[in-house]
């Protein structure tokens, strides 16, 4: 009896066609976007059904994904892959090579362009990710406050300190400073360095990487200058040394903050009092030439090698990054699609007209870098974080010593692991 | 005045409706061994603990050798207590247990050693001094507890069921030890027990306590032979007194106790009861101790026999030195104690008589009628 039932079920399965599991990020905006697109796909593609699921809860999506791969419960498609983390998965041979798939070159040319794509190439020369979106990390400042205090938006460290000096104040006269320049993170979580040290380092070096062929490539004056920048900020009291997690920028307790475009909506939602803000590139050391690069905070689509339907998955990835889907991404989440000529494309114009504050981020895209793609990146950034904490936050070691320690540790890691 | 005097002692635990001890008065002479008995929960321990100073007194006074010690700290009263569970300090050896109080009081080492050695000698603890209580037998532990009381040279020693954790044989042995110990101490001993034998054999004087009230005080013989009321009569004695419920009647100017078809002439009991039985509806209880019941024809001439009555044997308990026979007849169920040589069988029918000289009469309220 049950054999017959099983047979019927199997048959039904075959008739219905392929089912692919897709994991998206867990923030509400991205879930909404994914829901809309998946619904549309399932409506028009009867042969392949997509099952949407936000990444299950865990300490970080990377850890959840790893656990899933080990347990063989990973999805077919995942859209929240950090390119910096990719190599680990490539080395373990868990990801599908995309450049062997139908029309890969053509699709690339149409959406991304060869120059940008190069940044996403795996060390073996192949492509295992499909660049999806960027969140260029930039400096957002409170225009109203700046105007009131007559401060110029800072482009260099010098200008930054001038601004910082004016911003840092005791506004209610109780003898305690209650407004600061900005509030960089004090914690050692490895990914925090992607939003403080790394963007400043990229800005100071025209987008240089931390690593070069398995060696530390950051034991230089620029890195020391960046570390020194943060050390000064904390030491002079321009950055608060508090453990608070509350959003000081929205409360106007700091005049500047370093974020990607995804944060703008959040600011608007959590402002106690409305104020205007503006986005500019990350400040650079005095005498710097050229544009201010920054960390792009990219996320890519990947397809797992153990999928039963690679071609269908690839079709879905293309669907999710189509012209139309990219527009929805921009509109719903405020994140920037990795699409060449986006800002000048008339198709997207109406979004930028409605959401002007996305323009600076979109304009920054050509000057972004995806970060180093190393299987040791977490450990490297973790150790860098400890040095950042010691040098910048607590000032117990000089900036050059911190950079030297971190660089030595990179050697140590590559030697031992 | 020498000795211990309790004046109208009262104890009312907060939260209880009824006082636990009511207007308890008594005097204790030096060297006296007084046994306190009473049913469970009647307040014996409470009384001892008030004397010891472990529970505050609600009302009344305690005088020791003429000094009011009602509110004196327990350790300053010159009173020792021996507990049922010995209350030894389990982590200290026998020596340390005996020396504990003196050490607390910071007495000189030589004094301590001398006193402990003396106590150990009296209580045969010399070989056990470095053992911990856990390694001792029950009797040995009890001797350590006695020793701890002894070294204080108290004026009063309070015993709260000290032997009830021991087996029967050891208990009998320890009785003698305690009495000897009592003599050596020369203190007033107040001794609580549930064991009738213990009470009767050890006591100079007994106090029977019921619901916080002292019912009777007297030597064991007095209490046994002349209980003041039905409660005492029923309480004292290892096999309780039989109570037979009947009626008092007046017939031709003479009083009779009537139960079923039997009539017992009360004039033989020793007093001629010229009572108006109709006044208290005539209810009357006859008390007779098991040993005062005889089989027809087996009684000696010292006995004043009642009319012959019939009963059937329900159960026989052979004790060796005597035999307890449970009987049932027209007068109800009762127990009798017979000579060990007597052979009776279950279901056997027999005739028996009471010794009229040993009967007790109680009103319906449990008050004793004079005999």
């Amino acid at each position, binding site marked *: 009896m049950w054999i017959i039932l099983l047979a019927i079920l199997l048959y039904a399965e075959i008739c219905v066609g392929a089912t692919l599991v897709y994991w998206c990020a867990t923030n509400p905006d991205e879930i909404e976007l994914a829901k809309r697109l998946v619904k549309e796909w399932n409506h028009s593609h009867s042969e392949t059904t997509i099952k949407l699921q936000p990444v299950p809860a865990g*300490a970080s999506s990377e*850890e959840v994904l*790893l*656990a899933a*791969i*080990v347990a063989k419960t990973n999805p077919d498609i995942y859209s929240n892959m950090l390119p910096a983390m990719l190599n*680990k*998965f490539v*080395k*373990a*041979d*868990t990801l599908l090579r995309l450049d062997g798939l139908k029309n890969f070159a053509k699709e690339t040319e149409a959406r991304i362009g060869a120059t940008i794509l190069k940044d996403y190439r795996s060390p073996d020369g192949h492509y295992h990710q499909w660049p999806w979106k960027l969140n260029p990390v930039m400096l957002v400042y409170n225009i109203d406050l700046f105007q009131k205090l007559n401060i110029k938006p800072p482009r260099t460290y010098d200008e930054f300190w001038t601004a910082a000096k004016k911003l840092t104040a005791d506004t209610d006269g109780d003898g305690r400073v209650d407004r600061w320049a900005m509030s960089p993170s*004090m*914690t*050692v*979580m*490895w990914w925090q360095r992607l939003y403080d040290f790394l963007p400043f380092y990229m800005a100071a070096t025209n987008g240089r990487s931390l690593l070069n062929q398995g060696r530390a490539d950051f034991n230089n004056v620029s890195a020391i200058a960046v570390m020194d920048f943060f050390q000064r900020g904390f030491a002079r009291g321009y950055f608060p*040394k*508090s*453990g*608070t997690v*509350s959003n000081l920028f929205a409360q106007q307790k700091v005049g500047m903050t370093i974020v990607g475009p995804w944060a703008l909506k959040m600011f608007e939602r959590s402002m106690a009092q409305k104020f205007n803000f503006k986005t500019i590139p990350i400040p650079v050391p005095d005498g710097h030439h050229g544009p201010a690069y920054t960390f792009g905070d990219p996320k890519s689509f990947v397809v797992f090698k153990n999928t039963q339907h690679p071609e269908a998955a690839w079709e879905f990835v293309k669907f999710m990054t189509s012209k139309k889907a990219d527009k929805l991404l921009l509109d719903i989440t405020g994140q920037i699609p990795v699409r060449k000529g986006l800002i000048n494309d008339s198709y997207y114009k109406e979004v930028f007209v409605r959401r002007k504050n996305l323009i600076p981020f979109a304009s920054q895209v050509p000057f972004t870098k995806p970060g180093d793609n190393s*299987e*040791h990146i*977490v*450990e490297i950034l*973790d150790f860098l974080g*400890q040095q950042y*904490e*010691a040098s910048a*936050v*607590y000032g*117990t070691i000089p900036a050059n010593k911190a950079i030297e320690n971190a660089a030595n540790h990179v050697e140590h890691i590559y030697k*031992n*692991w | 005045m020498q000795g211990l005097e309790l004046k109208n002692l009262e104890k009312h635990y907060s939260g209880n409706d009824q006082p636990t001890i009511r207007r308890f008065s008594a005097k204790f002479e030096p060297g006296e061994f007084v046994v306190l008995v009473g049913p469970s929960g009647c307040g014996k321990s409470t009384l001892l*603990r008030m004397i*010891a*100073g*472990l529970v505050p007194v609600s009302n009344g006074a305690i005088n020791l050798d003429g000094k009011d010690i009602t509110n004196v*700290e*327990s*350790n*300053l009263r010159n009173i*020792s*207590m021996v*507990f*049922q*569970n010995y*209350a*030894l*300090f*389990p*982590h200290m050896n026998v020596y340390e247990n005996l020396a*504990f*109080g003196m050490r*607390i*009081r910071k007495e000189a080492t030589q004094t301590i050693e001398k006193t402990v050695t003396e106590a150990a000698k009296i209580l045969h603890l010399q070989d056990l001094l470095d053992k911990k209580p*856990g390694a001792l037998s029950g009797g040995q532990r009890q001797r350590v507890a006695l020793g*701890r009381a002894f070294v*204080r040279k108290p004026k009063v020693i309070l015993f709260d069921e000290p032997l009830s954790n021991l087996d029967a044989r050891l208990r009998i042995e320890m009785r003698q030890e305690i009495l000897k110990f009592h003599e050596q101490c020369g203190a007033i001993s107040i001794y609580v027990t549930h064991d009738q034998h213990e009470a009767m054999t050890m006591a100079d004087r007994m106090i029977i306590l019921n619901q916080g009230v002292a019912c009777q005080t007297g030597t064991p013989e007095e209490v046994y032979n002349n209980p003041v009321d039905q409660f005492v009569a029923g309480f004292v004695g290892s096999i309780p007194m039989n109570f037979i419920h009947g009626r008092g009647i007046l017939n031709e100017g003479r009083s009779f106790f009537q139960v079923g078809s039997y009539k017992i002439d009360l004039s033989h009991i020793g007093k001629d009861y010229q009572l108006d039985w109709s006044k208290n509806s005539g209810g009357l209880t006859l008390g007779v101790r098991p040993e005062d019941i005889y089989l027809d024809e087996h009684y000696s001439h010292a006995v004043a026999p009642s009319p012959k009555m019939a009963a059937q044997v329900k159960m026989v308990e052979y004790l060796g030195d005597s035999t307890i026979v449970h009987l049932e007849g027209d007068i109800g169920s009762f127990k009798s104690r017979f000579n060990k040589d007597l052979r009776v069988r279950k279901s056997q029918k027999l005739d028996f008589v009471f010794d009229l000289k040993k009967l007790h009469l109680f009103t319906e309220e449990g008050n004793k009628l004079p005999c």
Partner: protein
Amino acid sequence: MQSEQSHSKAGILFTSPYLIHLVVFFLYPVGFSLYLVFHRWDLMTDPEYVGLRNFTYLMSDHLFWQALTNTLYFLVIHIPLQIIVALALAIVLAKPLKGRVFFRATFFLPVVISGAAVTILWQRLYSTEVGLINYVLSLVGIDAVPWLTDPGIAMPAIAIMATWKNLGLYVVFFLAGILAIPQTVYEAAKMEGASSWHEFRYITLPLLKPTMFLVVVMSTLGGFNLFIEPYVMTGGGPLGSTMSVVLYMYKQAFSFQHMGYAATLGFALALIIMVCVFIQKKYLDSERYY
């Protein structure tokens, strides 16, 4: 013959739930970690045999030694604090107070609340600017204390929190120990003239020795497993001052995917705990009286 065989079959059948449990939840994990000690494994690729390299790395890994020092520092604060506070409370709660059932339950509450929830609560309490603790201190004129952001204060702060969290459990242990001591022993002592201090010093304390040993061993085990508090509150900082061995192990395993090294750390920790408990047993264990 026949029946003997069916007997042994039945025996296996009856013991199988336990055997399966033993194998699945104990032998297999322990065996597998022992295997991992000699391997490197990133979860995804096959484990690679490395001999004793994990051990040699451990020996020279100053981050591990710092974590171990931190953990020992935590224990040195936590255990005495735990014992003193729990014992004091147990003594108070052993007295016939009004509402003591309520208090006993209240102190036990944090024990059953999830560690993460408690930790998040305390993170708020400890907040330098907006925390309740600093607010209360400010009322009596004490300056804000950077509880979790000062490298010298963070670990003691965590020890205080851990003490609070486990307090109920140890109060229950001590309470059980105290209530097992017959009241008459205290009365006997009182009649000998013992003061409250004497009673505590010469009776309660020595008779609680077995409980004390239990509490010391349990809080040592718990203390070496310090994890959720620094994980949630400080991430091991500031300046690595709250990086515990287990948190470091967690980081090696799940942040860096150094499974073999994490297993090595686990074995090292187990060994250290064993040595500690052995020493404690030698100096603290005693006979039980009740």
